[in-house]
């Protein structure tokens, strides 16, 4: 029968989903936040089995140690899966905390919102363990489908409508392309489990098969869309800008991380024998993402849009270790894998923090236009400091947490610095790191050095108090940004344990 312990997080999340609907049906309008509380409790409860699974060998009555392989290799609960599940749950919790105050401040449907957010997190949690094409596809759809709807949650706002429709159409389209690729993978290898695909590629000698190139690229497109890598990125800035800001935060972290999980598992496992195919392709995508994302971000006047483009660029940084995969030895490959995962982990806290700060500032200032943020530190010095922490953190200024993942990324790519391609990519990444600093510092500069704009709607909203949940989210992310900057090992440890993923073929 099933290993219920291994499936406990998913089961708890599933039950919570149903419970959320039930709560939503029975509570009156003014108590709808209880649905959010239910979702929050469910997420926390789902995190508990992660701990017991991680510590399993020491628990009486828990026989299995090491990876738990379920359903004939379709579903695997290993350290990698546990770490990523943890990340998804944490980012889900923070996204929920960001949402509560935001939803109550205006006339939104609350109960359904929490339900959909939870459903999306559940999809991501499933993806972390998915080791076959069907499960990962369905998991991805469970991440995306609620997100399409959430992007349109500000029903009366045409921008939100647009955001939703654009996101939906490009999303479904990229899913179709990805499915076409998956069908070819299935046809060529006769397998849908990642392990089976990898074996079949070697056994049938498909390494230089053009059809496999097509299949690999098409599959990558599906995930590249999710991580908004150039040239599959166009939806991201529009959607971030139009969608409710907490949704944008979730899209840029939870949903994006889910895309990376798909990319990591498929590339490093199913397509492990054809690193020479996806390596160069992701080289191009990484270089383009960093450059295009950063250059366009330079010219943005809206801070959410700016974060949208910066998130594209960060996606590129995360892809950098992938790019040289063809040249790595086994240890180097583990380093590259670790590099990407670590970047995702750090970036999650930094970016959620940045969005939390944006939500808080918008609450005070009433605008996402950067010019309206001028002189923020005169009337909200605490928020100004938080903006500084997160934006400089994203820029990678030590000792804030952002420096460490960049360092790991550079080390991974320079691990094969004999290759001119590695040097070229490192230089591109380095130049982009500098460019990124310009626009992050630009926002900080406005916050501290500009005057309060005369016509800003500041006076109208300046006195508003922040929701306690938002303050909690800010506290968590700010603490993470500072503490993980000084003690990166606390977080990098989780990246470290995932190395085994690469070692196991």
């Amino acid at each position, binding site marked *: 029968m099933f290993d219920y312990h291994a499936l406990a997080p998913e089961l708890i999340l599933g039950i919570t989903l149903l419970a959320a609907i039930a709560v939503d049906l029975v509570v009156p309008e003014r108590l709808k936040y209880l649905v959010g509380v239910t979702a929050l409790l469910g997420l926390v409860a789902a995190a508990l089995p992660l701990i017991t699974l991680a510590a399993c060998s020491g628990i009486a009555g828990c026989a299995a140690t090491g990876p738990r392989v379920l359903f004939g290799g379709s579903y695997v609960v290993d350290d990698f899966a546990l770490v990523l599940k943890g990340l998804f749950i944490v980012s889900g919790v923070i996204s929920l905390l960001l949402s509560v105050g935001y939803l109550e401040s205006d006339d939104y449907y609350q109960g359904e919102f929490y339900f959909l957010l939870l459903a999306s997190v559940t999809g991501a949690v499933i993806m972390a363990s998915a080791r076959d094409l069907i499960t990962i596809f369905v998991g991805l759809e469970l991440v995306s489908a609620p997100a399409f709807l959430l992007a349109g949650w500000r029903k009366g706002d045409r921008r939100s409508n647009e955001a939703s429709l*654009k996101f939906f159409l490009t999303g479904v389209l990229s899913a179709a392309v990805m499915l076409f690729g998956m069908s070819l993978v299935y046809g060529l290898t006769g397998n849908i489990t990642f392990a089976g695909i990898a074996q079949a590629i070697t056994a049938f000698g498909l390494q230089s098969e053009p059809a496999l*190139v097509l299949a690999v690229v098409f599959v990558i497109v599906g995930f590249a869309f999710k991580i908004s890598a150039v040239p599959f990125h166009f939806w991201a800035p529009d959607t971030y800008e139009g969608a409710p800001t907490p949704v944008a935060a979730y899209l840029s972290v939870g949903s994006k991380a889910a895309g990376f999980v798909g990319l990591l598992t498929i590339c490093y496992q199913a397509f492990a024998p054809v690193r020479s195919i996806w390596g160069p392709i992701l080289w191009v995508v990484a270089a383009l993402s960093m450059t295009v994302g950063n250059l366009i971000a330079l010219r943005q006047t809206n801070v959410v849009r700016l974060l949208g483009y910066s998130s594209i660029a960060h996606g590129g940084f995360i892809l950098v270790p992938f790019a040289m995969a063809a040249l790595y030895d086994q240890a180097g490959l583990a380093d590259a894998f670790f590099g990407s995962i670590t970047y995702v982990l750090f970036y999650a806290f930094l970016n959620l923090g940045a969005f939390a700060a944006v939500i808080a500032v918008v609450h005070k200032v009433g605008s996402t236009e950067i010019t309206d943020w001028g002189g923020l530190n005169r009337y909200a010095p605490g928020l100004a400091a938080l903006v500084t922490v997160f934006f400089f953190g994203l820029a990678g200024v030590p000792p804030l947490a952002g420096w460490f993942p960049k360092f790991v990324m550079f080390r991974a790519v320079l691990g094969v610095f004999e290759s001119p391609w590695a040097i070229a990519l490192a230089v591109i990444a380095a130049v982009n790191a500098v460019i990124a600093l310009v626009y992050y510092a630009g926002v900080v500069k406005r916050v501290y050095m500009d005057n309060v704009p005369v016509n800003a709607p500041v006076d109208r909203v300046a006195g508003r108090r922040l929701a306690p949940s938002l303050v909690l989210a800010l506290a968590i992310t700010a603490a993470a940004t500072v503490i993980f900057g000084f003690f990166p090992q606390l977080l990098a440890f989780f990246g470290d344990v995932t190395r085994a993923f690469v070692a196991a073929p």
Partner: protein
Amino acid sequence: MTHLLLAYAGEAAHEVAQLSDGGTLARYAWLIPVVPLVAMFAIVFVGKRLPMKGWELAEAAMAFVAVYGVVLLIANASTGISYESSVEIARIGSYVIEWGWVVDGLSIMMYAVVGVVGLAVFTYAKGYMEGDVRFTWFFAAFTMFAGAMLVLVSAANMIQLIVGWELVGLASYLLIGHYWEDHENNAAATKAFLTNKIADVGLFVGVIIIGVTVGSFRFDAVLGAVADGNSALARVAFWAGLAIFIGAMGKSAQFPFHVWLPDAMAGPTPVSSLMHAATMVTAGVYLLGRMFPLFQTEGFATDVKAIIIVVGAITLFATGLIALVQDDIKKVLAYSTLSQLGYMTVAMGAGAYTAGLFHLFTHAFFKGLLFLCAGSVIHAVHSNNMSDMGGLRKSMPWTFRTFVIGSLALAGIFPLAGFWSKDEILASVQFDASGSGGAIASVVLVVAIAGAFVTAFYMARAVYLTFFGEYQGHAHPHESPRVMTYPLIGLGALSIVAGFANVPGVYEGFTRWLAARPFSMGDHHFESINYALAGIGLAVALAGVALGTRLWYRDAATQRERDRFRVPVLYPLLEHKYYIDDFYLRGVIEPIKGPIARFVDWTNTNLIDAVVNGFGGVARLAARFVYGGLDQRVIDLAINAVAGGTSEAGEALRHTTTGRVQQYAGALFAGAVLLVVGFLIFT
């Protein structure tokens, strides 16, 4: 106290000497970077509530560092100290990231310099910043600035060095932009930050290449690999060394990364003082010193030294000339700092570890002093421009005396500090020219001697224009309060005596202090003073002073009038219409139609002037060209073009996001198909 049997790194001590591990003193040296950083947080949180608004915390922290540094220096002078300790904070696979502190000759020297100069500057800043609206904030950032530099200096590994390095950059950004109400200061802060960041890319790449090759980021592991002749490191040493030098060029403002430093004058004067003397700009030279064996050991990055020496020589001469035409007194000093950093870089490029760092040591005192004096003057006359000054020697006697001491030290006049250190650099370059440096070093030697002349020349100008003649400003100048003059006197005294720390053949203490490191530096030490070169150096410096006196020691109605050359031979050809007329009038028309007597008279009264002015004019014209033509146009243009180009590219690219979802879809398909087709074609 356990003693380590380690060979003294230097050539000076031929015998195998004992190095001490420093005992308790070294084990608690981690306090040196930590105390200022703790003080910074304390100032941020409680500073405003304290009676002196946080200044006392900053001062106490710097006093602690100064005392600790000096005590270490004394201990090191008696028995060389070499101690190192690290605490692991993170681990990437087999790579360990650590927090460590190094207590050896090099770092002790830096602790002492940062502490002593910092203490003087912090004391002075109390008076200078009095009444500033962001007084507390200033001292928080200022303490962080010093603390970050100490983090950098104490780093036992390259990662920590980068952390300190970036923190210094961040603190300088905050401090340069302190008067952010003025837009120009913002721009200056941003420019400094970005120029540094671009160069930092080099450091980053270099550090990672070395770290990956050696398998550790610790300095002792890296230098150990150099000592063992690690072949993997030898293969990449050139590129790694070059990358690291690029990083050093950014912080130490070497050509063409020097552009940020003059603009960085926008910050309050104490910031400039600390930045130019002890922190920030010395970081690059310090880094080269820390990594010195990599550049010096045969088979490693020795080829980079040729680049280093050339870059240093260009910097020292080109920027020295520019100092000649500046009106802003702080800019004169800023360009002079660039020039002196050029000397230090030249020394490093010539393989003269001790000489380069000795100049860093002496320069810290007199440049810190000069900036504080300039601040005192600016404080008094409410203007940075020398055209608004003049005649201040009467109203500001202490500032005048100390400024003259600093200027003479900088100009390299015997027996002040600058004389000894500059002479040692010249001697090292000469030694290099006779050895591996070859022709390049010979040329550099000439450039360096010419630079000594220029240095004396522009400092003479600064002294005469500021303190002599008639006062031209509007405010009523007065001597600064004692909290400001005492630091001047202290630094003035150090500027006089610091040079005696290393007199070849007489007292070589500094050489021994610096040599207290576990790995051989392999640089050359002189057994005695090179009298010939010392004579030449002193002669050109005196010539510079003399020429300056001839040109600027005179009274005139306005400062502009005083700051003027009369060059009847060169200017007509090149510059000003007025001078063309003048030339015709006095050089051609009058002699022809006037009597012979007038011609003889003219010759008598003007020929010497013409020669003198002509010589000065050449220098001045060259300076004009370098400043107006090269520095302001070409380099600024290049930087602006890069910045503008990036921005334009962003603007163009941004229009690819058309808002039309079907174009997004088209891009998605086209991207996918192009990736496939491109891959199939190219492989």
